[in-house]
């Protein structure tokens, strides 16, 4: 991920050398942190963004000639704060909340320790996932504000025209300011529900990853980054750790998901030596920390399932009975179309395709009409019919699965399976 690429207004990195690279590092590491600090007292994200963009622009203009300041973050924060103050003065708006003292002049920049200022990114994430914000815009808003992706980049990931995405983001930010959504961690009574929507919004970034497929991905590892940021902010929440582990384990397998010629490789056929061992061990750390809290939840279960799959890299086999147990618990804790399709697929591995198909049909009948457009359910159904030798039905099921598949590599794979079924 390179946040600054989209924000650069000056010449390319080659021309400006270390100054631009420094600005790049500052942008990547601190964009969300600085934005959260700037917006926290007023809930004015748009104003904070403008101020921060000005600060970055000034950095690109002055650092090459004057040198990179010893504390780039503090420099950016101070310039942006001064910029905000100018905005307020010019708008002649009386401020209800005083600015933090001590950042008045650039001369004091070296005294500011940004790491000593509380990190407000959790508050920012809570704002993005606030119940007063439309559900569909929560994930885009997080990617845009916490990680600094542009409306164009976010729009591409969500297959929405950039101008539409920009309008949605602007509207959401205006709403945050006008409605008075606070940058504050809610009290104990409200926190669990609010954290759930934060987790869902981060998970939303993970789901678009896979839906668009690794080739079409325009925002590499954005969900990973969001989840890891969240885990550093709330290390004691087992579901936060579980989500980080889940996304790391999925990301670890990404290199094996497509073969050398760009074809989709299903999990069972993937070469474990291509899985990323660092990501897997980071995920296990999260899972250990989560399990130590003794509080089971949906994301920990999903991560545990991924961990069992990843254990094939170590043991060479897959523990299907363990997977079946985990899938059954997951389906009872958090029933969804996804958990239904996965439970049916695992049932087929343990008890055979007949049992798998019966489970799938029963669960989908329960889920109602929305299940008809659910790609994983169609794909699972096709594979099971194929294994049962019911070729005609399998071909028809592959047809509908293919029509619902967005990822070109996966579509190609399903087309290949359909051809094979036809020829039998």
């Amino acid at each position: 991920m390179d946040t600054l690429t989209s924000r650069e207004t000056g010449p390319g990195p080659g021309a400006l050398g270390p100054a631009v690279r420094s600005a790049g590092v500052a942008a990547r590491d601190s964009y969300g942190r600085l934005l959260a600090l700037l917006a926290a007292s007023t809930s004015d994200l748009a104003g904070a963004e403008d101020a921060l963009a000005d600060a970055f622009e000034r950095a690109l203009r002055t650092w090459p000639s004057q040198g990179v300041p010893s504390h780039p973050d503090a420099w950016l924060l101070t310039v942006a704060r001064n910029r905000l103050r100018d905005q307020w003065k010019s708008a002649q708006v009386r401020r209800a909340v005083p600015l933090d003292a001590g950042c008045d002049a650039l001369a004091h920049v070296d005294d500011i320790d940004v790491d000593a200022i509380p990190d407000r990114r959790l508050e920012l994430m809570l704002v993005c996932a606030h119940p007063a914000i439309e559900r569909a815009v929560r994930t885009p808003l997080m990617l845009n504000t916490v990680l600094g992706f542009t409306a164009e980049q976010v729009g591409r990931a969500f297959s929405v025209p950039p101008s539409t995405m920009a309008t949605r983001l602007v509207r959401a930010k205006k709403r945050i300011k006008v409605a008075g959504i606070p940058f504050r961690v809610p009290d104990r009574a409200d926190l669990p529900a609010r954290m759930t929507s934060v987790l869902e919004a981060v998970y939303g970034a993970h789901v678009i990853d896979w839906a668009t497929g690794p080739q079409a991905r325009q925002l590499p590892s954005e969900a990973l980054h969001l989840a890891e940021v969240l885990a550093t902010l709330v290390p004691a929440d087992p579901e936060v750790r579980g989500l980080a582990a889940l996304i790391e384990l999925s990301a670890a397998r990404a290199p094996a998901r497509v073969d050398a010629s760009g074809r989709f490789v299903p999990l069972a056929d993937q070469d474990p030596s291509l899985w990323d061992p660092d990501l897997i061990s980071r995920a296990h750390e999260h899972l250990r920390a989560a399990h130590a809290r003794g509080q089971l939840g949906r994301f920990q279960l999903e991560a545990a399932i991924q961990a069992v799959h990843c254990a094939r890299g170590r043991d060479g086999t897959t523990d299907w009975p363990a997977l079946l147990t985990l899938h059954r618990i997951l389906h009872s804790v958090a029933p969804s179309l996804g958990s239904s399709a996965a439970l049916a697929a695992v049932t087929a591995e343990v008890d055979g395709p007949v049992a798998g198909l019966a489970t799938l049909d029963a669960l989908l009948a329960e889920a109602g009409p929305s299940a008809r457009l659910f790609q994983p359910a169609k794909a699972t159904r096709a594979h099971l019919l194929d294994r049962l030798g019911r070729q005609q039905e399998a071909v028809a099921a592959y047809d509908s699965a293919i029509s619902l598949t967005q990822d070109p590599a996966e579509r190609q794979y399903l087309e290949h399976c359909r051809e094979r079924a036809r020829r039998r």
Partner: protein
Amino acid sequence: MRYALLMHYREPGEGEISEEAITEAQEAFGAYGRALESAGVLLSADVLQPSAATTTVTCRDGGLRVQDGPFAETKEALAGIFMLEVPDLDAAIGWAEKCPGAQWGVLEVRPTATAFVDGAWTR
């Protein structure tokens, strides 16, 4: 920030609600009003007469037009207005949740854009 909690619910028909239920609701609203006041967030609280008592006034078509009945006929009618001064939306939502009207209707939580206070429109 100033917020209006706009309480809406389906207006009950004549005699639809028992005396006991009315007394119970009055007590609940009494406790709610006292809670708002003692928290120091209450600017005003009004529960309205049914929309049958409404008169609609406009001059937008030239002359004065006075009509009986509400501006828009809706299933759920505006039934009460609570004006609060609280720090943020979360606080306003918290008070809306405690309003007895939320048990059988909906509360719209709307921030004030500008209010006439001490002789001038202020933000």
